[in-house]
C-alpha cells in the first residue's frame, strides 16, 4: 500500500528522438520526408501537384495546392490524398466492427455510444431475436430492455449510415451481441487498424475484441459453443451473467488490458501481434507494475524492436 510519487518527465525534444538501436536521428524537416509516415499540421502543404485527388482532412487553396486541414498522418491511395487525424472521434464506415454502449432505449431502437460524433442506432429489427428465425413481434417491442438495457456493452457491425451522419448497427450474427466475462478499455480509434478479423484469441488464453472505434473488450473465452438454432443459446446471448473467472484468468485479462494501455500510451498501433509482443515483454513485471511509467516505456520499446526485426 505504498504510494509512489514521481516527477513529470519533460517530453523528448525533436532533436533527440532515439531510435531503437540508440542512434540519434536528426529529424529535420527535409529529412522527415524520407519517412513513410508523414505527420502534418493544419495548413501545411502536402503536395503541389494538381494530379492528386483531394480526400478527407485536406483542402485546396487558390493555387491548387493540397493543404492539410487536420493534424495527422498523410495517406495516399493511388491519386487520392487524405490526412488521417492523430486524435479524433470515430467516423463510422459500413462493415466496420465496433463496440458500443447502450445509452437509451426508445421506440423500436436503441441509441448506442460508439465514440462517434453522434450516437449510433441499433434497430430492433437488426438484432438476433431469441428463438428460431422469426419476425419481431409487438411483445418484443414492449420489452426491449430484455435484450439490451441502458449501460450494456455490445459488439456490432456498422450496417449503414443515416442522412445526419449517424450510423446504424446490426448484431444479426452470433459473433455479435452482448459482451460478458471481461473488462472494457478505451484507446484512440486511430490506433486500431482495419484487419481481416477483430476477434483475437491470444496464446495466453484471453480473447480480445478490437472495435475500430477504439473501444476494446478483453475477456475470458466463453466455454459455450453457440448454435444458431438452439433455443437455449439464443436466450443465453442476452444474459447478463458472467461465467466464473479464476484468479489466473483474471490476472491474464488484467495483464492484457495493461499491455494495451501501455501500447496506447506509447501511441503504438494495437493489433493481435503488438499485443502478444507487449504481453511477452511484460512477463518480467507483475501485473500492477505494468501501470508504472517506466515499465510502460520498456515494454513499448521492446515491442517496437520486435516489430522491426
Amino acid at each position: 500500500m505504498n504510494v509512489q510519487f514521481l516527477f513529470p518527465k519533460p517530453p523528448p525534444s525533436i532533436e533527440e528522438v532515439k531510435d531503437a538501436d540508440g542512434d540519434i536521428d536528426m529529424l529535420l524537416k527535409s529529412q522527415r520526408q524520407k519517412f513513410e509516415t508523414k505527420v502534418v499540421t493544419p495548413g501545411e502543404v502536402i503536395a503541389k501537384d494538381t494530379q492528386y485527388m483531394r480526400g478527407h482532412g485536406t483542402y485546396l487553396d487558390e493555387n491548387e495546392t493540397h493543404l492539410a486541414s487536420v493534424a495527422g498522418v498523410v495517406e495516399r491511395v493511388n491519386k487520392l490524398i487524405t490526412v488521417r487525424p492523430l486524435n479524433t472521434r470515430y467516423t463510422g464506415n459500413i462493415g466496420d466492427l465496433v463496440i458500443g454502449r447502450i445509452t437509451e432505449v426508445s421506440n423500436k431502437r436503441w441509441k448506442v455510444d460508439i465514440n462517434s460524433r453522434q450516437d449510433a442506432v441499433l434497430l430492433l429489427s437488426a438484432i438476433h431475436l431469441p428463438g428460431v428465425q422469426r419476425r419481431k413481434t409487438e411483445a418484443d417491442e414492449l420489452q426491449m430492455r430484455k435484450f439490451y438495457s441502458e449501460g450494456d456493452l455490445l459488439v456490432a457491425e456498422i450496417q449503414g449510415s443515416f442522412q445526419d451522419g449517424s450510423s446504424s448497427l446490426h448484431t444479426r450474427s452470433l459473433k455479435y451481441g452482448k459482451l460478458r466475462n471481461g473488462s472494457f478499455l478505451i484507446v484512440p480509434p486511430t490506433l486500431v487498424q482495419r484487419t481481416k478479423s477483430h476477434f483475437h484469441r491470444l496464446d495466453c488464453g484471453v480473447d480480445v475484441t478490437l472495435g475500430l472505434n477504439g473501444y476494446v473488450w478483453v475477456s475470458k473465452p466463453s466455454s459455450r459453443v453457440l448454435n444458431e438454432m438452439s433455443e437455449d443459446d439464443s436466450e443465453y446471448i442476452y444474459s447478463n451473467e458472467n461465467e466464473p473467472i479464476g484468479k489466473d484468468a483474471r490476472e491474464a485479462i488484467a495483464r492484457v488490458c495493461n499491455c494495451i494501455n501501455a501500447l496506447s500510451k506509447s501511441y503504438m498501433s494495437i493489433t493481435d501481434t503488438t499485443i502478444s509482443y507487449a504481453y511477452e515483454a511484460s512477463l518480467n513485471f507483475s501485473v500492477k507494475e505494468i501501470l508504472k511509467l517506466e515499465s510502460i516505456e520498456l515494454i513499448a520499446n521492446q515491442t517496437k524492436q520486435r516489430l522491426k526485426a
Partner: protein
Amino acid sequence: MRYVTPGTRLCFASEYEAGPGTYEREEYIYSSVVGIVQEFIPTVSTNTGEEKKQSKIITVSKEKHQSSIPDVGNIITGKVIRMTTREAVVSIMVVGNIPCKDDYQGIIRSQDVRATEKDKVKIIESYRLGDIVKAEVISLGDARSYYLSTAKNEYGVIYAQSVAGAMMVPISWQNMQCTKTKAVELRKCAKPEDLFSKNQ
C-alpha cells in the same frame, strides 16, 4: 394483531416466504412498511394434480397506502390531455381504485386503441380532449410515458362531453350521444358499467 414499522424483524427466512410489504436479508425476513403482519398459505392448484407443499407467505399490509404508481397490467383511469394523429396522451389520475396524488403521463398509440382493424384506427375518431378513459398499462414505456391499451371491451371512454358541452351516453361501442342535442359523436367506448352509481 401485530403492528410493525419498516425494519422490524418478522421471522426466519426458512419459516416463511417474503410477501408484499416485506423483504429478506440474510436469514431473516423484515417488514418494509408500516402495517399489520399477516400470513397465509397460498392455494395453488397444480394442473398435474400433484400435492405441492407450499411454504407460508408472510406479508405486511400497509396501514397507509403509498401514492399509487402504475405498473404493467394495472387498470387506470385518466383524462385525454393531448392528441396527435398517432397517439393520445392521457394523464393517469387513478390506478386501480386508488387516485394518484400527482398525475402520471401515459399514451395510447393508435395500434393499441382497439383489438381489431388496427390499421384503420384514427385517434380523432376514438378520443377527444377531456375524455375520461379507462385503460390498461401494457408497458413502462419510454422515459416520459407509460404505454396504455384500450383494446378490450371494458376499456375506452367512460365519460365524455359533447361539442355542446353536455354529458354523453354510449349508444354502441364506437358511438356516443349527447344528452342535450342528441348529436352522435365517434368514440371508442368502454362497455358501460356502473362506475359512479354509488354516488348518484
